[in-house]
C-alpha cells in the first residue's frame, strides 16, 4: 500500500495547487472586466488626441515644434517599454520582450545607441539584463489602476533627454489588447509625431494659435505623449489580466487532467493490493485444509 499512499499525497498536493490557480483565474477575470472598462473609457481621449496631433502635424504652418520635426541624424533612440509588475501571466511579457529585443537589434545594426525607460517590474528586470542598453528611468509597482501622475515623471525624463538632444527619436513598446485571447506587442513612434494617414485633402487649413503656436504645440504635444503612454499602461493592465486569466485557466485544466490520471493509477494500485491480499488469504486457507 506504500505506492498507493504516495499517489494519494500527490493527488492532494495537486488539488491544492488547482485551488490556487482556480482562485487566481477568477480574480483575474473580475479584474480584467474592470481593467477593460477603464481601457475603453480612456480610449476615446487617446484616439482624439492622435487625430488632433495628426491635424496639427499636417497643417501647413510655418511654425513647427521640435517634437514634430524628424531629426536628420538618429544617433540614439529612446524606448519606453510598458510591462507588468507581476508574473504568472503566460507568454505576455516574453512576447513583448521578444519584440523589444528585435527592435533594439535593428537599431544596433544601424549603429544607433538605445536608451530605455521602463514601466513595470518585469520590464525593469529585463532591461537590466540587457547589455549595451542604457536604462534612464524606471517606474514599478503601479498597481491595477495606474494614475496619470505615475506616468509624468518618467515621461518627462524621456522628453528632457529629447530636448537636450540625447535621444533623437522616442518609441513606445507595449501590449495592445485585441481581445481576451489575443494580446499583441506593438511598437509605436511617439516623437517625432507622425501625421495620421487617414487624412487626405481636407486638412489643408492652418490654425489660429492662441496665445502662440509654440505655446499651444508645447502643451498639446506634452499632453499627447502623456496620454499615449498612459493609454499604454491602462491597456497593459487589461492585457495582463486577460493573459493571466487564460494562463490560470489552462493551469487549472492541466491540474484536473493530472488528477484524473493519478486517480486511475491510484485505483489500480489499490485494486492490485486487495487482489494480492485475497490471494494470500486463500493460499493460506488452502494450505491449512
Amino acid at each position, binding site marked *: 500500500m506504500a505506492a498507493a499512499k504516495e499517489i494519494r499525497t500527490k493527488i492532494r498536493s495537486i488539488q491544492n495547487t488547482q485551488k490556487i490557480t482556480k482562485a487566481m483565474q477568477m480574480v483575474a477575470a473580475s479584474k480584467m472586466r474592470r481593467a477593460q472598462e477603464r481601457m475603453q473609457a*480612456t480610449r*476615446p481621449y487617446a484616439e482624439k488626441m492622435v487625430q488632433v496631433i495628426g491635424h496639427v502635424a499636417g497643417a501647413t504652418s510655418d511654425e513647427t515644434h521640435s517634437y514634430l520635426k524628424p531629426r536628420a541624424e538618429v544617433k540614439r533612440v529612446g524606448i519606453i517599454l510598458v510591462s507588468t509588475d507581476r508574473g504568472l501571466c503566460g507568454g505576455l511579457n516574453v512576447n513583448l520582450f521578444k519584440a523589444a529585443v528585435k527592435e533594439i537589434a535593428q537599431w544596433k545594426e544601424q549603429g544607433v545607441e538605445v536608451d530605455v525607460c521602463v514601466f513595470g517590474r518585469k520590464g525593469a528586470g529585463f532591461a537590466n539584463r540587457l547589455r549595451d542598453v542604457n536604462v534612464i528611468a524606471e517606474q514599478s509597482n503601479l498597481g491595477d489602476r495606474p494614475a496619470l501622475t505615475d506616468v509624468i515623471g518618467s515621461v518627462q525624463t524621456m522628453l528632457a533627454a529629447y530636448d537636450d538632444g540625447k535621444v533623437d527619436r522616442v518609441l513606445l513598446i507595449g501590449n495592445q489588447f485585441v481581445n481576451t485571447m489575443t494580446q499583441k506587442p506593438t511598437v509605436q513612434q511617439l516623437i517625432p509625431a507622425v501625421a495620421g494617414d487617414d487624412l487626405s485633402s481636407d486638412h489643408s487649413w492652418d490654425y489660429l494659435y492662441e496665445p502662440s503656436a509654440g505655446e*499651444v504645440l508645447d502643451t498639446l504635444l506634452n499632453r499627447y505623449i502623456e496620454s499615449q503612454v498612459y493609454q499604454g499602461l491602462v491597456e497593459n493592465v487589461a492585457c495582463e489580466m486577460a493573459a493571466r486569466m487564460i494562463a490560470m485557466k489552462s493551469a487549472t485544466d492541466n491540474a484536473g487532467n493530472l488528477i484524473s490520471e493519478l486517480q486511475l493509477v491510484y485505483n489500480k494500485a489499490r485494486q492490485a493490493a486487495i487482489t494480492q491480499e485475497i490471494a494470500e488469504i486463500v493460499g493460506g486457507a488452502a494450505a491449512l485444509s
Partner: protein
Amino acid sequence: MANTIRVEVVSAEGHMFDGDAEMVVAAATQGEVGVAAGHAPFISPLRPGDIRIINDGDDEQHFYVSGGVIEVQPKLITILADTAVRASDLDEAEIVKAKERAEALIKDRNTTVDLATAQSELVELAAQLQAIRKLKKTR
C-alpha cells in the same frame, strides 16, 4: 434651423458629449471664447472653467473642465479635457467647503503643503463654483 457644428467633448475618463451645437463658449487661457459654426480653424489651451454648449437658443449644456485643449476645425469642434464634469453633477456646498480649506492652507504658510498646489487647487475650485452658479442663473 440655424447653422450648427458638431461638438465633441472628450475627457481622460471617457466621452462626455457628442452632438450638434450652434455655439460653444469656453474659457481659453487668453479669455473666454465663443465659437460658432463657420469659425476659422483655431486651437488653444483651456484654463479651469466652464464650457457652455448652446443649441437652439435655450438648450444649454454646461460642463466643468479642469484644463485641456479646444480645437476648432471647419466642421468639428473637439474639446480635449483633462477632467470634465457635467456642471449639474457638481455639489456647491462641497466646493465651498473645499475652497475655504484651500484658502486656509494658503493663509497658514507654516504647513508643509506646497503653496503652489494649494493655489492651483483654489483656482480650480473657484472655477467650479463659477460654473455651478452660472448654471443656476440660466435655469
